[in-house]
Each structure stands twice: as C-alpha cells, then as structure tokens.
C-alpha cells in the first residue's frame, strides 16, 4: 500500500485510494458485526433446540406450523435476495434508476415476508400458543422474532438507501452503503435457512 502511494505521485490518486481504503475498512468492520450477530443467532438456536422438548402439554408443534406458509416465506426471502443481487449488479454498472427499481422489488418481497411473520405470530397468540404458553414457544418466538426484527430493520434501511440513491445518485459512499445493506440482507437469508431447516421442517416432520 505504501509503495503504491509513493509511486503514484499523483494527489488525485492518493486521495481516491485513501477514500477507497476507508470504505473497505468500514465494510470489513460491518462484516465483523455480522459474524457477532451470527453467534447471537447460534445461541438462540441452541436455546431453541434445548427448549423444544418442553411443550408443557400445549398445542403439538406440527399443528402450529403449516408447510405451505413456511415454503412461501422461504421463497419470498430467496426472491428478495435475488432482486437485491440484481440491484447490486445495476449499481456496479452505474444504472441509478435500475438500482432503485430492484431495491423496490426487494422491499416488497421483504415486506411480504414480515407481513406473513406477523400474521403467523398473531394467529399463534390468538390460538393460545403465545410465547407465555411453554418453554418451547418462548424459545421459538425469541429466535424467529429476533430474525423478524432484523428483517424489519433491513426494510427501513432499504427505504433510507432508496431515498439516498434518489437524492444523491450513485456516489462511492452511497455505493459502499448499498454494498453493506446487501451483506446484511443476504446474511439474514442465511439465518432463515437455519430457521426453516432446524425449526420448522423438523417440527412439521
């Protein structure tokens, strides 16, 4: 890095390089946050697995979860990850409005997911299977609820990013923030893989 700065001998170059390095460092810092978030989710998973044997004679779990709903939520998140990827690709080629359109599609898929989550939680609570019912349900609501809160924060972030792209265009700082939004969102979809594989499917089985 030092060599490159000396050999370039061009003020513009060094300023650009320094700015780029600062953005890369921010991205790496955000990556480390994601890793620590993964550890939080791992502990919630471990808690769930331990507590899943304690239904306290409440509703049996295979009557609580419905396979088509879980599948629909999974497809919504997969679609949102793909559209956000298309948005990132449009950003890389500097297409501002295409970036915005794909961001909008991602927002709609994410909103659909959160809506399905809320209606599922509400339906369970009304049916007397709220988090107060048993250890199993407390752990379930904590794990899946934490994920749903993360996705909701991601939705707010998408809206803010959309506003920024509209008002400021695709300058390097906005592009860097969009990249971190992508990391956050794709990470949440990975957590959902764990949730449908180890929470929903084994309980429906």
């Amino acid at each position, binding site marked *: 890095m030092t060599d490159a700065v000396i050999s370039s001998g061009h003020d513009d170059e060094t300023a*650009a390089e320094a700015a*780029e390095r600062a953005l890369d460092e921010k991205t790496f810092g955000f990556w480390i946050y994601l890793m620590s978030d993964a550890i939080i989710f791992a502990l919630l998973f471990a808690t769930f697995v*331990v507590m899943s044997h304690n239904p306290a004679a409440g509703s049996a779990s295979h009557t609580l979860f419905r396979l088509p709903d879980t599948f629909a939520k999974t497809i919504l998140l997969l679609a949102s990850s793909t559209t956000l990827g298309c948005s*990132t690709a449009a950003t890389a080629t500097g297409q501002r409005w295409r970036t915005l359109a794909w961001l909008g599609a991602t927002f709609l898929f994410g909103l659909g997911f959160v809506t399905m989550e809320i209606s599922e939680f509400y339906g369970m609570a009304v049916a007397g299977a709220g988090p107060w019912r048993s250890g199993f349900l407390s752990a379930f609501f904590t794990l899946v609820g934490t994920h749903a809160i993360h996705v909701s924060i991601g939705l707010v972030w998408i809206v803010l990013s959309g506003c920024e792209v509209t008002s400021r265009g695709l300058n390097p700082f906005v592009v860097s923030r969009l990249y971190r939004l992508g990391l956050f969102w794709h990470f949440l979809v990975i957590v959902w893989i764990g949730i449908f594989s180890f929470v929903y499917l084994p309980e429906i*089985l």
Partner: protein
Amino acid sequence: MAAPPRLSKMPTSPQRRKSTIKGYLVGAVLALVLTAIPFGFVATRTLRPKQIFVAISIAAIIQVVVHLRYFLRLDLKPSSQNKSISLCFAAVVLFILFGGTLWIMFNLNYRK
C-alpha cells in the same frame, strides 16, 4: 465524514467489479433447488423421519455455502482473505457454543 471532492471514479474493489447479474441468477437457481429438496422430502415423506432430517441438514449446509459464494460473494482470493478468516473464527466460536450447549444440556441426566 471527510468526503474528498476529487474522488470521481467509482470504487473498484474486486467484490464490486464482478457483481454481474449472472452470478446472482446462478445462486438463485441453486438455492431454489436446495430449498425444494428438503421441502419435497417433508411434503411427500418418502423416507423415514431420521433420514429426512439428515437430508434437510445436508441441504441446509450446502445452501449456506451457496449463499456465501453467490450472494455474499465470498471466495478464496486474497481480496476476501480477511473476511474468510473472520468467518472461520466465527464458525469455530459458533461450533463450540452451539455444540457445547447441546452436549451439556442433553447429558444432564448423567449427574448424580
């Protein structure tokens, strides 16, 4: 934030340069297949529950790798070395916490 006004070019770090749409579509197709397999097994119940659980676990692990590769754009090149190292560290911590918790909690009956 110190925003240098002369910064005119787009950032060209490797992750951004090769963000082509094709990679994301390949990832989406693979992810869709790896999602359909476990849901298909659970819906049709062609195997015994224990075998289905093993199939779900294998599909989940492969799908996580697919997402890391095609959506998070993680590869083995030097440019993402720091990310890979921190991911490996997180994986070790995760394994110890998750595995250790289950190991302890499911062996409590051995205590006298």
